[in-house]
């Protein structure tokens, strides 16, 4: 079984090396196919592992070699495929594979084609190490690896200055999180002497609770960075600078869920630590609301999706916060499906619009882009939570858990958020696909459906986002909650009572009704009345604040970036040059100055010399007598 892990890890790495080194000599299709195949291979492996575990096999461990050994620190380069890891593997490789296929079409005209695929493969490799690592350090290695890949891919079109900055921003914000994670790992070393999952978790009880709290918080800081939660979420929307498949794969389906994975992985600790869980809950909740509201006022198709991603991640963290870890992962899965679908859909739209991303210049695309339109619609419905699509079940479950686990307030806020979600998603949908076309003539003339390499993944994902809910049918429909039962062995869920049927029904009905209303309203507003959102600057009142994203970037700029830059200049020009170096130089110059004065003593006048001699003699006589 261990060999499957090895293959799963190795094949993307191989793909990376091939397309990285020889990519420029191979024809594009070959590169693409090699890359996709390599991912497919690891997908197959993960299926194998999945079967193995599903049939009651126990976790597979792969020991390779001792990576770092110094004193008490000894880190093995080993991997562990338990149910959680494999669950993530499935998503990563599965969605990853589809997106590879898609990219073959999407990136076809780009001269960095092979580089793109090399990076993608590298990403898959790192992501797999992240989820498969058998201890926190290996996970950290994957963690940084994916961060790097996202940096590379966001800055893929480096010729554009803005994109470069976006990439840097992403990397640095992640780094801030990473510091927290790293410190957490040090704490673990400090407490348990190792970071190997099995040992650490088995001895989790031994450590005192305060330490555990601290560890959890530190780990969560890492999660916040990676999963774009408040306050470190601003990088994700900017990350949309990258090619759309990247946004789909990294910034929607997989990488950003690493934070969820981390917390879920450490569920043993989090369950036992009140404070940390509360923090997780609050952060998640706030993020969900804030991001959703911002999403209302965005005009860039990808930005809207980005903010919705942030808000959905917030959802997941809420779930984690209340201790429903398997629920969170369930939502991760469904979200991976429909969000990937939506992004790819938007990608195909952008493809058709030849690079245009602003929905104010779109509209009425449903006629030209049939498949895209249909799949996108499905995605929208799914995320809006229309039963029986995937989104409904996962969201509904989170709501339920929140309600029973944490009370009414959280529940209400989440409900509101999901309403908002529906609003901005349909706004997006209608503005894009219905009404009159608002783009330029030659754009209109150029409109076309994307090639099959792009549409097929769309279709598959659409299907998945329809049936994905099956992984976790709520107790209303079936007594077998697959995700829960599968994962419960590795996740220690807080025991939250199952929602009553009444509650289920109420939620179901209410949500259907609400959605219906929302759809009609948005449709009438944007399609019938042909309202077109204005640009951020023309907005007024609260709308302006929203469209300016609550001025987060500006605040950070003034509160953090500017001061540091000022400090840097100050430290260099004043403290260093003037003060420290000044002291050094003065002590140097002092000598020359003294020399200059003492030199005068040597008047060249012999009388003075004689006098000096006599004075010297007398002085010595005095010393001689006194001492």
């Amino acid at each position, binding site marked *: 079984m261990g060999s499957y892990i090895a293959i799963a890890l190795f094949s993307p790495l191989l793909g990376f090396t091939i397309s990285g080194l020889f990519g420029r000599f191979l024809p594009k299709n070959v590169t693409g196919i090699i890359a996709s195949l390599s991912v497919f291979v690891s997908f197959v492996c993960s299926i194998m592992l999945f079967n193995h575990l599903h049939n009651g096999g126990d976790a597979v461990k792969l020991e390779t070699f001792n990576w770092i050994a110094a004193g008490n620190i000894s880190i093995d380069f080993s991997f562990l495929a338990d149910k959680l890891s494999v669950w993530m593997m499935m998503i990563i490789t599965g969605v990853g594979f589809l997106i590879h296929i898609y990219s073959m079409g999407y990136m076809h005209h780009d001269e960095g084609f092979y580089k793109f695929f090399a990076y993608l493969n590298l990403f898959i490799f790192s992501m797999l190490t992240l989820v498969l690592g058998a201890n926190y350090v290996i996970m950290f290695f994957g963690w940084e690896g994916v961060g790097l890949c996202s940096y590379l891919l966001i800055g893929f079109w480096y010729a554009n200055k803005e994109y470069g900055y976006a990439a840097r921003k992403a990397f640095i914000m992640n780094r801030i999180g990473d510091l927290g994670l790293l410190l957490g790992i040090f704490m673990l070393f400090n407490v348990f002497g190792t970071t190997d999952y099995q040992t650490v978790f088995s001895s989790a009880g031994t450590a005192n609770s305060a330490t555990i709290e601290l560890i959890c918080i530190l780990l969560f800081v890492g999660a916040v960075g990676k999963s774009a939660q408040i306050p470190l979420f601003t990088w994700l929307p900017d990350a949309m600078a990258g090619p759309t498949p990247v946004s789909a794969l990294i910034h929607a389906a997989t990488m950003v869920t690493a934070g969820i994975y981390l917390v879920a992985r450490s569920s043993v600790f989090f369950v036992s630590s009140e404070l940390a869980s509360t923090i997780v809950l609050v952060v998640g909740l706030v993020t969900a609301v804030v991001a959703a509201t911002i999403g209302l006022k965005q005009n860039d198709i990808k930005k809207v999706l980005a903010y919705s991603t942030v808000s959905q991640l917030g959802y997941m963290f809420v779930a984690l916060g209340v201790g429903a870890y398997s629920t969170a992962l369930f939502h991760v899965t469904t979200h991976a499906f429909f969000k990937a679908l939506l992004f790819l859909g938007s990608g195909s739209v952008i493809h058709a619009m030849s690079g245009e991303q602003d929905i104010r210049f779109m509209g009425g695309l449903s006629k030209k882009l049939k498949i895209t339109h249909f799949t996108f619609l499905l995605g929208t419905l799914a995320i809006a939570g229309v039963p029986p699509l995937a989104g409904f079940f996962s969201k509904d479950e989170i709501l339920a858990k929140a309600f029973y686990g944490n009370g009414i307030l959280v529940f209400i806020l989440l409900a509101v958020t999901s309403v908002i979600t529906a609003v901005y998603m349909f706004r997006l949908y209608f503005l894009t696909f219905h009404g009159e076309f608002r783009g330029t003539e030659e754009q209109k003339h150029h409109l076309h459906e994307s090639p099959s390499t792009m549409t097929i993944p769309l279709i598959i994902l659409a299907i998945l986002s329809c049936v994905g809910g099956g992984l976790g049918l709520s107790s209303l429909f079936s007594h077998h909650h697959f995700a829960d039962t599968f994962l419960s062995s590795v996740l220690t869920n807080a025991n939250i009572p199952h929602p009553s049927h009444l509650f289920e029904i109420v939620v179901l009905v209410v949500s259907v009704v609400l959605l219906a209303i929302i759809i009609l309203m948005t449709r009438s507003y944007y399609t019938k009345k042909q309202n077109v959102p204005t640009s951020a600057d023309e907005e007024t009142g609260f709308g302006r604040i929203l469209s300016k994203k609550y001025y987060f970037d500006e605040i950070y700029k003034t509160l953090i970036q500017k001061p540091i830059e000022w400090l840097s200049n100050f430290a260099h020009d004043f403290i260093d040059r003037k003060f420290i170096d000044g002291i050094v130089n003065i002590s140097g110059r002092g000598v020359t100055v003294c020399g200059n004065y003492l*030199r005068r003593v*040597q*008047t*060249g*006048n*012999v*009388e003075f010399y*004689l*006098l000096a001699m*006599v004075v010297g003699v007398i002085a010595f006589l005095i010393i001689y007598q006194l001492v």
Partner: protein
Amino acid sequence: MPPIDHYIWLSSILFSIGVIGVLIRRNGIVLLMCVELMLNAVNLLFTAFATNFQDSAGQVFVFFIMVVAAAEVAVGLAILVMIYRNTKSVDISLLDKLKQ
């Protein structure tokens, strides 16, 4: 003979006079004379001690000193002459070219 201390005081005074002379006079020749005064003070001291100890070595030393002093003066005068030839003066305070 009177106690040795008197001689010591005397010669010390002479010596000091010589020193002061060297310090305050500028004329090269006078300077030489002052130096001679110092040396003679020493001579006096030596002889005094010698007679006091009934020891000849001291007196012998005096002769050495005289000889050396003579030689010194010879050289000194020569140098002064040389300088006079170049500067038409024996005022030592004029000689301060060497300095920085």
